[in-house]
């Protein structure tokens, strides 16, 4: 029994959240059972992901291959769990589990009645399952289907709030994300027409022999996939939906959207670019230079836009645009240190941004004030919330001893190794700008006199989840060992293909 569960772990990680999401709607009247089931599903997923990561680390190079339906590779769908998949599974469930604990009892005023809260949880679990599937699958059309499930769940999560601005933000997000999906499907169509395979390994081998005959079709496929995934993961000129969507969503949804949903599309982009096309084709069509350039522009543009925002959640949303720029910069550098730095930065940013959004949401729920200038003196009234906010901000800026520093250090080493001095300068400048838009919040919270109002810390489960997330941030900074090793092996696997 245990042996059969261990052999089928890649599928269980995907289908356990999905099964519990399917039956959740029949239990609407018993809220405690619903919340308990959600937390149980995320905990089970975390245990499975941890065991998969441990197995992959021990196996040292061979990947777990699992065939759905027993059909071998070109005829059936194949799931391949390597270091990249194990890393991303850990990130997904490592963020979803604390956020599910935070959402317990916190949703009533933002979402509404019990029935709406149950539907919110259904969409939440569907998003977790779809992202887990995107991490492990090795088939191109399977990625498209899971991308669509994730997009619809994200839009549903954004529109869950009762305020009319949420509906507007969700509509813009839906239209632009579906545009991106249509482009991705067009790219997959071009790859299928030229190579005749839908499996990523086989398509990559075939593409190496065939691309000289029709270079324009392959060029179109590369550009469609670049723009399609760029719209979904907020690459700089295509990020216009992100500030509205991430600031108008309910708090646990903002944390999960900014933390792992954007990263899921980044991982799919990585799988397509390095797994199907390969580094030689990327250099042939100058994709790496485009990615470096757009990443640099995103860092500067996102940080400068974040400086001008007065609402706390919008400032954090623009900060996500800037940090995604760092990750695209790492993808474009195409050497092992750069890719490993980008993947480690992805991990640390997921945890940091969730902490920041959850703390901001707790402040918003307790005080009812959205703008930063009105949050005077909140550090003394809500000590635990502001302490976790400060720890996460210091880590995002890149102070040594926290996790952001390790990621930025590897990105710096990668850009110096590639011979380019401009990215190194802009990475450091980006950290300065990040300090410029995060320190005012901390200063106003701690060093200004507080008005005489009763602002208390949020409840027990919210405090537990905030402390858990900030502990993970500190641990990633002090002992980055296993995660950094997973990231380095993932980079080596991607570059060798």
């Amino acid at each position, binding site marked *: 029994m245990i042996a*059969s569960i261990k052999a*089928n772990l890649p*599928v269980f990680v995907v*289908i356990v959240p999905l*099964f519990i999401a*399917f039956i959740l709607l029949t239990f609407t009247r018993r809220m405690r059972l619903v919340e308990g089931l959600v937390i149980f599903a995320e905990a089970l997923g975390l245990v499975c992901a941890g065991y998969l990561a441990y197995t992959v680390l021990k196996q040292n190079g061979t990947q777990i291959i699992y*065939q759905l*339906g*027993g059909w071998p590779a070109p005829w059936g769908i194949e799931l391949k769990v390597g270091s990249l998949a194990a890393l991303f599974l850990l990130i997904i469930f490592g963020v979803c589990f604390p956020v599910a604990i935070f959402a317990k009892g916190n949703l009533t005023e933002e979402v509404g009645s019990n029935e709406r809260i149950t539907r919110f949880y259904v969409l939440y679990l569907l998003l977790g399952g779809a992202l887990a599937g995107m991490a492990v699958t090795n088939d191109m059309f399977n990625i498209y289907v899971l991308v669509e499930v994730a997009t619809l769940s994200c839009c549903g999560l954004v529109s869950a709030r009762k305020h009319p601005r949420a509906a507007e933000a969700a509509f813009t997000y839906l239209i632009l994300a579906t545009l991106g999906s249509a482009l991705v499907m067009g790219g997959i169509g071009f790859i299928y027409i030229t190579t005749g395979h839908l499996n990523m390994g086989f398509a990559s081998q075939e593409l190496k022999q065939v691309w000289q005959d029709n270079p324009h079709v392959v060029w179109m496929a590369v550009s469609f996939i670049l723009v399609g995934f760029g719209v979904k993961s907020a690459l700089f000129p295509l990020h216009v939906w992100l500030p509205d969507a991430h600031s108008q969503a309910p708090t646990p949804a903002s944390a999960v959207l900014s933390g792992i949903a954007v990263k899921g599309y980044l991982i799919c982009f990585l799988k397509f670019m390095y797994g199907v096309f390969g580094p030689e084709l990327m250099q042939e069509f100058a994709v790496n230079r485009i990615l470096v350039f757009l990443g640099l522009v995103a860092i500067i543009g996102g940080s400068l836009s974040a400086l001008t925002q007065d609402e706390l959640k919008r400032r954090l949303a623009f900060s996500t645009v800037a940090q995604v720029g760092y990750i695209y910069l790492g993808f474009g550098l195409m050497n092992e240190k750069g890719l490993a730095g980008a993947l480690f930065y992805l991990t640390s940013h997921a945890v940091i941004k969730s902490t920041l959004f959850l703390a901001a949401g707790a402040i918003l729920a307790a005080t009812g004030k959205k703008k930063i200038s009105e949050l005077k003196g909140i550090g003394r009234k809500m000590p635990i919330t502001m302490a976790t906010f400060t720890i996460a901000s210091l880590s995002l800026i890149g102070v040594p001893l926290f996790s952001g520093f390790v990621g930025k250090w590897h990105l710096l080493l990668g850009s110096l190794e590639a011979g380019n001095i401009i990215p190194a300068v802009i990475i450091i400048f980006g950290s300065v700008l990040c300090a410029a838009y995060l320190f005012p919040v901390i200063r106003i919270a701690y060093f200004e006199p507080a008005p005489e109002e009763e602002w208390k810390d949020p409840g027990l489960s919210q405090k537990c989840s905030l402390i858990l997330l900030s502990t993970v941030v500190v641990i990633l900074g002090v002992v980055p060992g296993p995660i950094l090793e997973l990231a380095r092996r993932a980079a080596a696997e991607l570059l060798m293909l």
Partner: protein
Amino acid sequence: MKDFILKRVASIILPFVFIYGIYVILHGHVSAGGSFAGGIIVGLSFIAFSTIYGIDKGRAKLPEKVLIFTESYGTLWYGIMGMVGIFKGVPFLTNKLAGIDLGVPGALSSAGLISLIGLGVGIRVASTMVTLFFIMVEDE
């Protein structure tokens, strides 16, 4: 006058539309159609009924609880059919390797899991179409 003609014609035709939808679902592995198209046809028969006879009669035939029940458990049926392989030691969603008898291709009871999964998906798609219709039609 128009209402009278519609109601009489619908009362004769709609049961046949419903049975045609179930035929398309069950014969998915033999001819064209399958779970999704058959589910839509079944759902459309209920939507036509609600449009012609009024929303209240439509809701009385398919109350909220029945719709939620069929939606959730129709999808769970898919998952449970997939787990048959895991209990026998082969991967998820296996058909022949899990020892299911595949039968003669072209006959109705062949192809193992495919028609069983199609049944669950068809019922689910039908109830989703009816739910979407009821949501869009409500006035307040």
